[in-house]
């Protein structure tokens, strides 16, 4: 039997429907308001250069004694964790009683060209952690690192264990040389010095283009063809546009930090193999003894699960927990399942180790 049995009637109807949806989509798009994001109230507790640390306010007072600081990646904006009312990791953590803070890195520009990992980790993160601890009146805080922010949090916790009570890593690469890591495979052939010396800061467009080429047909094409199906639905379109904004609302990368991260993490895999130094501080994961909760996504095309799983054997922690989430790199924050499963898992784990 022929596996392709396309009825010309159906094909024709599909074309007609598509044209109709495009026409009505025109009306929908015209009526769309600017999308909003970042739904939870917050207050500024620390500011330095373009970095701002916020404390989120929930409907009730936090019950947790130890505050949790979210350290987001330098790529993309951190409002992914508080995208909209029904898709907010922050909101759900607050509802569970956590006291949640977040570092917003801001948008880098030419003035930030020479910021390196020392400035970010031993500088901004350290002072942000101190500010949160001071604000909460505690000596140690919890860190929740996301993606690249997770790698930063691992470095920070190793260097300053006296400042961290519990460490949570989400979709965090630890082993950058797993065979299925496409980004890492490509980056190893890049002359990173030539790249940064030429480009200075690495443009968001270039970063986004690289990410999209990991799944080119799906992300350049299929996604937008699928968009026709929801063109006449304002709510669905709003969600789509919000996500689309987040994807392309990316800061440039500070040149020196990008150089060091590519050279030492992607190319050298030093976080796992050893020999990593952030400024003058050595990072040796095998000395890390803190309680660790490692959450990763099983269908993550940016940070393959194996890259995160490597953390299990990399530290000296006797209190290590690992959660494999069924979803992708972004779905772990915004999918319905994520809203239901991830915040309670984090809260329960923290509650057992609070105070």
């Amino acid at each position: 039997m022929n596996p392709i049995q396309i009825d010309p009637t159906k094909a024709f109807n599909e074309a007609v429907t598509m044209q109709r949806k495009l026409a009505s989509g025109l009306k929908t798009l015209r009526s769309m308001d600017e999308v909003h994001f970042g739904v939870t109230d917050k207050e500024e507790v620390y500011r330095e250069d373009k970095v701002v640390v916020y404390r989120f306010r929930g409907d009730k007072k936090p019950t947790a004694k130890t505050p949790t600081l979210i350290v987001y990646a330098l790529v993309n904006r951190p409002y992914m964790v508080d995208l909209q009312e029904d898709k907010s990791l922050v909101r759900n953590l607050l509802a569970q009683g956590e006291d949640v803070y977040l570092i917003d890195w801001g948008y880098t520009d030419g003035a930030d060209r020479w910021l390196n990992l020392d400035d970010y980790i031993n500088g901004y993160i350290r002072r942000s952690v101190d500010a949160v601890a001071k604000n909460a009146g505690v000596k140690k805080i919890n860190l929740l690192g996301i993606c690249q922010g997770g790698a930063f949090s691992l470095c920070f916790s190793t260097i300053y264990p006296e400042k961290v009570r519990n460490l949570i890593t989400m979709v965090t690469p630890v082993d950058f040389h797993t065979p299925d890591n496409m980004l890492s495979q490509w980056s190893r052939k890049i002359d990173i010095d030539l790249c940064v010396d030429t480009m200075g800061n690495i443009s968001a467009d270039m970063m986004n283009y690289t990410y999209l080429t990991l799944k080119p047909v799906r992300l350049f094409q299929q996604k937008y063809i699928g968009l026709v199906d929801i063109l006449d639905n304002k709510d669905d379109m709003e969600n789509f546009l919000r996500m689309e904004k987040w994807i392309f609302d990316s800061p440039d990368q500070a040149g020196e930090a990008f150089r060091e991260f590519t050279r030492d993490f992607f190319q050298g895999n030093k976080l796992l193999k050893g020999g990593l130094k952030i400024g003058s501080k050595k990072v040796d994961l095998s000395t890390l003894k803190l309680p660790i909760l490692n959450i990763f996504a099983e269908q993550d095309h940016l940070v393959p699960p194996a890259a995160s799983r490597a953390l299990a054997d990399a530290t000296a922690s006797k209190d290590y927990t690992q959660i494999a989430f069924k979803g992708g790199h972004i779905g772990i924050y915004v999918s319905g399942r994520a809203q239901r499963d991830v915040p309670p898992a984090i809260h329960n784990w923290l509650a057992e180790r609070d105070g």
Partner: protein
Amino acid sequence: MFDFNARNPGMPDWTAMAQQYMDALKQASTGPAAAANPFGNVWPGAAAANPFMPVGNPFAGMANPFAAAPVNPFEAMTRAFAATDKSDGSSNSDVAERMAASMKNYFAMLQTMATAGMSEQASGAMGDKNMGDSNPWLDAMKNVAAAQGGENPLLSAFRDFGGNGAKGFEQMANQFMSSPAMADARAMLQLPTFGMSRERQEQVQQGFLALLDFQEKSKAYQTQMARAAQRGNQIFQTRLSTRSESDKPIDTPRAFYDFWVDAAEEGYAEVALSPEFSQAYGDYANAQMALRSHVQQETERTTGELGMPTRSEVNSIGKRLQELRREFRAANEAGTVAELHDEIASLRAEVKALRDGKAAANAPAQTASKAELGRSLRKETPRARKPVAKRASKRTPKAAHRSKSASKKVASAKAAASRESKDAKPASFAASIARFAEAAKTATKAESKATRSTKKSKKATRKSAAKS
């Protein structure tokens, strides 16, 4: 008129379908964007002669809705979307542009498939043909690339994506190719490099070589992309041929497209993870950077001659500034600056004390003036205490203990004052002064207490002497 439906009762009512289609178009043309009807030029003359009117074989008379048109409807839609900017300046046209660009390929696929499907249906072969090389759908799929000018659909997809990251390199290379610098380079390359302009000629030659290298690496990268597309097609065909009887047949163009996307992605991932691809990718990126770097150097040379600041100069300043910031912060946190502040405060207080002279020395202890502060910072404390302690030690043990304890408190408070001076942060001079004043006040109180204690011990000694 030949009645196709009468001869093929199972076939759809093409007239009704045609009407439905025209209604859709009409709706679009009377929509909000009527002023810029995105479909206005899709089928020129359509209104005058309905292309859907069946004449004999309906397929023969039917204008293929996907046929090449002067204006691609999706491009036209993009223009219409682009005009949807709202009064607040915001716009959703980015999404529309991306969508329209992405749909070009899908549209091309539909076009070729529709053409193939219609011709096959017309000959009555549709659905009966076994899988094989001559399958019209597969043939149509193979022609998708041809319909797009023979371009690799993957590369086409990349190019359609808007953004400097995607376009920048090629545009830059093209601009460089057509720039006077390039024309200059070609001419220069025919001449030996010597004399006054030797260095300049060499730079131009290097630029030309960077461009040639970029073109070469670009071709190697495109070869890998073509390999990925080819592998995707292989997987696609293999999957089709291995679909079992129980599998649901692919019965819509969208399902067909999604099936193809899955195979294309799998083929791409397989090739993209290969060492050959990584090498080609790296070479391509590095060649782009080398070319960019050369263009930047050329630009710097030109702008430098015009007296404009260059990127290199700005970079140098930025680098030095960041290094200074690091040093300053490190020194600040290590207390170096704090110590300097303390020293200045100490010296100022000492000068003030010297100026005030006796008046300052006789000032009431409780006021904790700056004069006292100066005294507390000088090494003057033991003189007042020692006699008290010595005398006390000659008295009763209890009184002596009290006196010693008081002396310890004085020493402790003064040590605290001294520590304060070391630990003081450079937040402000006034804050340092206030801290010292507080510490000195504490020292003074302890001293007063010690004095009282000494008086008591004197009294006790007298009593003891009287008793004895």
